[in-house]
């Protein structure tokens, strides 16, 4: 029996049981629109790729990481003793940041292409939930090395849930595992990071991807206005898939460049009795809400300011989340324009408050 015959026979055996041909036939039939904004279609795939990188590097880190009192020492060993441990850790941290960046780009591209409109509302909601979980992934992972910066940043970060009226202190205490950030907090964050969050993220991701398959790629309003015969599209397989994989490869290059040229550093071991280092600040993806709360705090000092800030912020997120119920029509009417301006306002607010946050830290 030749190799080709053997491969065919093996494929036939698997195909009979799993129906691979049907999947391949479906993928060949599936079409992806081609237009001036097609570039934005790739950002969901890039986010997925970076998530896969995190799973792979996270599993490798899991082999050597020891939560609890030995957390810092184990990260020190990974970074300075284990062969290529620094590279795996750097790739994990950089891919986390790049993934959040890719998700933000994906979210705004979906928003401005109006891809949240019927029948894709659940795609929008599940995407927003995935973003929320991804930020919690970032927050929980940030503490795990237990160096000076991560310790104090987490301490400051947990002040936000603490400020929620009535239930806030209880939530913060539950997350900390006590009144202070200690090795118990690391233990809890570790469980959250490697068990709870993946258990939530993975099925939700599956649901999100299934919705994309079910409804296909949304057309931006400018394309929808065209007659169907004037619209261009390519087959998902192999045309779009090959391009998607090329984007993955480019993302891998960017990741390799960042991880190898700018390895993720490890600060001093935390000292709970030491004063917080100067310029302590949250990660870039939390900088905007952090700065907004800070600005509101100066306008309305005291507890009132904190509560007003949280309420305003929650209201903004709710409006953003519920946009599919407001802007429903395919026609470019008043509501569509309002939603568009709301999106532009959100982008400007996000960018300016983030820049302002970094600027004030430097002062």
């Amino acid at each position, binding site marked *: 029996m030749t190799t080709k015959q053997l491969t065919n026979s093996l494929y036939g055996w698997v195909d009979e049981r799993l129906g691979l041909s049907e999947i391949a036939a479906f993928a060949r039939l599936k079409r992806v629109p081609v237009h001036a904004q097609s570039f934005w279609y790739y950002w969901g795939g890039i986010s997925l790729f970076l998530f896969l990188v995190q799973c792979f590097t996270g599993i490798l880190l899991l082999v050597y990481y020891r939560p609890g009192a030995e957390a810092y020492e184990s990260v020190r060993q990974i970074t300075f003793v284990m*062969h290529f*441990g620094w590279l795996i850790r750097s790739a994990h941290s950089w891919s986390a940041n790049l993934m959040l960046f890719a998700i933000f780009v994906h979210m705004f591209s979906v928003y401005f292409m109006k891809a949240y409109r019927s029948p894709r509302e659940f795609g929008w909601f599940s995407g927003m939930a995935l973003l929320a979980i991804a930020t919690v992934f970032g927050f929980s992972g940030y503490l795990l090395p237990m160096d000076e910066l991560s310790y104090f940043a987490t301490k400051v970060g947990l002040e936000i849930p603490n400020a929620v009226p009535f239930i806030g202190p209880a939530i913060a205490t539950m997350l900390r595992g006590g009144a202070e950030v200690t090795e118990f907090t690391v233990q809890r964050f570790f469980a959250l990071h490697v068990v709870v969050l993946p258990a939530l993220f993975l099925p939700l991701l599956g649901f999100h991807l299934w919705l994309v398959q079910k409804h296909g790629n949304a057309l931006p309003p400018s394309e929808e206005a065209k007659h169907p015969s004037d619209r261009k599209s390519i087959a998902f397989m192999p*045309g779009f898939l*090959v*391009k998607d*994989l*090329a*984007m993955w490869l480019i993302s891998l290059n960017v990741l390799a*460049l960042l991880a*190898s040229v700018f390895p993720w550093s490890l600060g001093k071991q935390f000292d709970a009795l030491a004063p917080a280092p100067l310029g302590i600040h949250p990660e870039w993806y939390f900088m905007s809400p952090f700065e907004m709360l800070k600005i509101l705090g100066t306008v309305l000092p005291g507890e009132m300011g904190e509560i007003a800030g949280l309420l305003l912020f929650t209201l903004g997120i709710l409006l953003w989340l519920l946009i599919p119920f407001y802007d429903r029509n395919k026609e470019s009417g008043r509501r569509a324009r309002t939603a568009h301006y709301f999106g532009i306002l959100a982008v400007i607010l996000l960018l300016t408050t983030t820049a302002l946050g970094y600027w004030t830290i430097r002062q």
Partner: protein
Amino acid sequence: MNYPFWDIPHLGSGWVIGLIAIYHVMISQFAVGGGLYLPMAERKAMRMKDRAIADAWMAQLVRHSKFFLILTGVFGTVSGVGIWFAIGLTHPEATSTLIHNFVFGWAIEWVFFIIELTTVAVYYYTWNRIDPRLHLTVGWVYAGASAATLIIINGILTFMLTPGDTWIAVAGTGHEASKFWNAFFNPTYWPSLLLRIGVCTSLAGIWALITSSRIDGDQQPALKTSMVRWSVKWLVPSFVATPFLLAWYLFMVPETQRTLLTLGIDTIAGGTFSTVTRIALIIVITSATIVAVAYYLAWRNPADFNLSHAMAVLLLALIATGSGEYAREMLRKPFVIGRWMYSNGVRVPSIARLNTEGYLAHSNWVWTAPDGAATSSYSRGEAIFRGECGSCHTMYGYRSLLRLMNGRDRAGIRNFVVMLHDDKPDSPYHKFMPPMTGTPQDMDDLTEFLNAKVNPPAPSRPKPLLTAQR
């Protein structure tokens, strides 16, 4: 030292050169490779039997040559002049050596620049205005002139890494220029030239993909397919030959420099590589990606190949080129001119004299207090920092000394400075950092300055640059 120090806070003067150079190299190497691409494409079109496709090719080449003229003739030229300004300010000692040693080399280079700029303008403005054969000849003249600029500059650039024993033997005697050809055809000249030719042809193809991507695939599928595929072929020679040429190049690099590849400059972990090795690996990864992306996006789907795809390939080429130039610079450490001048401008034979007479005694541009009044230790230390460290380090930004010295007290900083001064062969810094030159007083002064920055007295007050002691 004969020149003033150019202090660029945060970014560092090295990056001023780096940023201009990477941008310039992307364009200047296109000027060479693209110079070959245009007449070859024109000749191919002239030989085509199908006149319709030949005319479409010619029309596309007119568009491409306009892009080529603007990019190379404007941006390439301006950035080239920018490099001269940048290196003159950042490394005046090294620039002076290059000018004195290669004065006729530079003169020839500039003659070819003038021919290049003239012919590229003539080439573009005479499309369909002069006899096609004469037009093609203009293209070949341009190709020859631009290749000559590469042939010359390659000799000067490789000289900085491997000046060769013959030139080193006469260096400092005033007869350096008599060994012009030895310095020019130095040990790494040929592998470097072939490597750069490969990069030039690749960039010719990559930039041509930019203009080819603008062809409407629906309106002119045959033109787009043939143009895109022909441009992709320009990437092939380089990607086949580069691994062998790179091995040859590294074989010609002195053993002392080659060890940098296995040394952890950022000494971060077991199983780590030095920065230069990591950067070199980036070149390999990115080059392989360019091949894969060009094959799948351009060769397999030429009609759908759009500007975003072409920009992605260009971005990868930018990463590969930037990494290549950075690695080449890093491989030269601790010298700016191999075995002759350290990266901070101190000549190797001057070390003993500076250690006896003091570093500042030979720094002509350092301000001294009037009436011979003594300057403060802090101020002298700052001047030494700028002269000896400032070429590679900044205080607060790139390769920040504040970060590198963080955690050391005064005694720790002093020990570190002494270690750099002694520069023992077994020192981990010996292979990639110049020795700290100067008298024990200079070491004290540098320690004083660094300590004031790393461990500022509370409240910290900024001190003036140079102050006379009262």
